[in-house]
């Protein structure tokens, strides 16, 4: 489990397009850099990120080492009904981190 920071507007009007911001604290070791002792740091990355709203998928990202440390994603979402916005990250070992936030639509 890694620390996450997400920003979902607590309220929105129906049909409004809101901006969702997410970040997960993760080094995203790309497998190309060395320690000061000269040993290679093995690859250790988040491989998958997804967001679901009202039970349906909004976005799914497959990450590669080309994504910076502390992977940050911002994307638009159309508010339709009150519900939970769920986020899920999976690292290369299969460990899963989740987060969710309620959005009231009225």
């Amino acid at each position, binding site marked *: 489990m890694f620390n996450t920071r997400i920003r979902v507007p607590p309220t929105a009007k129906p049909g409004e*397009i809101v901006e969702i911001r997410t970040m997960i604290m993760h*080094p*995203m070791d*790309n497998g*190309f*850099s*060395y*320690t*000061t002792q000269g040993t290679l*740091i093995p690859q250790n990355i988040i491989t998958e990120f997804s967001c*679901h*709203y*009202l039970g*349906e*998928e*909004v*976005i*799914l*990202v*497959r*990450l*590669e*080492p*080309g*994504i*910076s*440390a*502390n*992977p*940050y*994603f*911002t*994307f*638009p*979402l*159309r508010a339709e009904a009150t519900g939970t916005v769920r986020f899920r990250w999976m690292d290369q070992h299969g460990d899963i981190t989740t987060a969710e936030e309620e959005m009231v639509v009225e």
Partner: protein
Amino acid sequence: MTIPRRHVLLGLATTLVPLPVLATPPEVRDRIATLFGPGPLLQGPITLDLPALAETGNSVPLTVLVESPMTGEDRITRLALFAEENPRPVVCEVAFGPRACAASLTTNIRLAATQSIVCVAQHLDGRLLTARREVRVVVGACTTLPGRY
């Protein structure tokens, strides 16, 4: 036998037309073909927003937006971003689900050197759209010391 001057000029002209994908390194073209199939790449209404000059390649802000209503049959299903000179050229692959209201994403990427970023997006009908942007990178990622991301 003499070759007509017109044919020579025509031939020269076709080799000089800068097809965007032809400028892409073969390795990256292979990756595009693996992910999206061999279809032709059309210049698409894609906005790649990233700084023209990046001080550090460790974290370069990037926004990609493919213009699409994202309704009914007229939607972008997925896209991928490629950094041509990175040791691992695929930066990320994105799939847009039924709740996506715009084919847009903002993130931070790593760049090893001054290079072009290529975006390939796939429409629901199978069309492949592409766009590229050049970025100058002062200090590349991959070469820096640990702890400095």
